[in-house]
């Protein structure tokens, strides 16, 4: 993998975090891990070894091993070959953690960003309020609750008649 050039000095946690945040998500390469909101912390552990804590999107996300391997490469390239990658379930990742920049990047690539559910409400299957990334109309109908990856569903725009993926709110 062609990562950042190895350095001899150990980069500080903040610099490592920037590099980890810039890694693309394997299933949604238009968005970085930072904008996706899955980087929980980058800080030394109790024994002083640098730890990267990631928040899995879905428990069975098939991209997780790949993301973990990519983060390990960054740790090595940043002078932390002993660094650790941990997966944390608390706090839980939700689509609210996607940054405004991440939402813009998704929309620019034809993936409608999530619409936040009402707090405590049921898991929604997007209805109505999701703007079509092609024409901007909000007159989309659900097409399939499951889509090309676990985090996406498919809607169908009744105005421009194009189907489009939508990052399901969680």
């Amino acid at each position, binding site marked *: 993998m062609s990562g950042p050039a190895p350095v001899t000095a150990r980069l500080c946690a903040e610099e490592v975090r920037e590099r980890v945040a810039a890694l693309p998500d394997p299933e949604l390469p238009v968005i970085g891990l930072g904008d996706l909101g899955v980087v929980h912390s980058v800080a030394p552990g109790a024994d002083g070894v640098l730890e990267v804590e990631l928040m899995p999107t879905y428990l069975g996300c*098939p991209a997780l091993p790949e993301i973990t391997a990519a983060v390990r490469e960054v740790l090595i390239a940043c002078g932390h070959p002993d660094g650790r990658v941990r997966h944390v379930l*608390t706090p839980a990742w939700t689509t609210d953690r996607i940054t405004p920049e991440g939402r813009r990047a998704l929309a620019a690539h034809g993936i409608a960003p999530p619409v936040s559910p009402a707090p405590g409400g049921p898991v929604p299957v997007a209805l109505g309020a999701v703007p079509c990334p092609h024409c901007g109309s909000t007159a989309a109908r659900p097409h399939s609750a499951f889509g090309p990856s676990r985090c996406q569903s498919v809607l169908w725009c009744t105005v421009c008649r194009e189907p489009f993926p939508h990052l*399901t709110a969680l």
Partner: protein
Amino acid sequence: MSTTSDVAAVRPGPPPGEPPAAADPDLARHLTRLGDDALVLGQRLCQWITRAPTIDEDLALSNIALDLIGHARTLLSRAGRLDGSGRSEDDLAYTRSEREFANALLTELPNGDFAVTMARQLAYTHYAVLHYEALAHGADPELAAFGVRAAKEVAFHRLHADRWTVTLGRGTPESTRRMRRALERVWPYTGELFEEDDVARRLAASGTVPSPAALRDTWLDRVTEVVTEAGLAVPAPTWSATGGRSGLHTEEFGPLIAELQSVRRQFPGGTW
């Protein structure tokens, strides 16, 4: 299952350098049951891939299976840490024999037609959401974190099963007939989900996991609501299947596990 073995601590476990969690055979047994339910049902659902009625259903069933296998990974890796054997999630999934699996028989039932698969999904998802929601409020913080996530994910699968049950029940005379027959096929296998033995009773008393029997009334209310909306009646079977929790499985289980484990058995320790 996992393809990275170099992750320092997958899932929120004890921090590195600390001794492993003390063996807790009861909790290990319970997590094996839950994990095997998810693993076996996930494996069954994968048999629909390329065979589902539409490509959207192909995606739906395979995505549901993916979630279930994710749940199994979390549950079985914890079970391996608690049972004192030090086995990984992969060891548990790929090297146990048929009699060592503790899934409820419901989850290993052959897929049948699409209606049977949806009837099985209806029964399982309503049960699993209740169980995971209770774990989310349980005494074990690691399981509680898992319960929060897993309950949300299975609630999405439940919506899928609810919709298909109603769609088929209120569809054509043929789809109604098939949905009714599917519920009758599956229902004798639902009782086992709520069985209690000494392990379940001890854990429920400690507040770590819910009492399975205590979930039954809520489960029945919820599935009855869906089945009634579908214009059908909840079957009242005169018999109830049991045995899966203690490793006694149906005849169709062996081939399923053989398929699951075939690569690992032919190429032990193989990587790619």
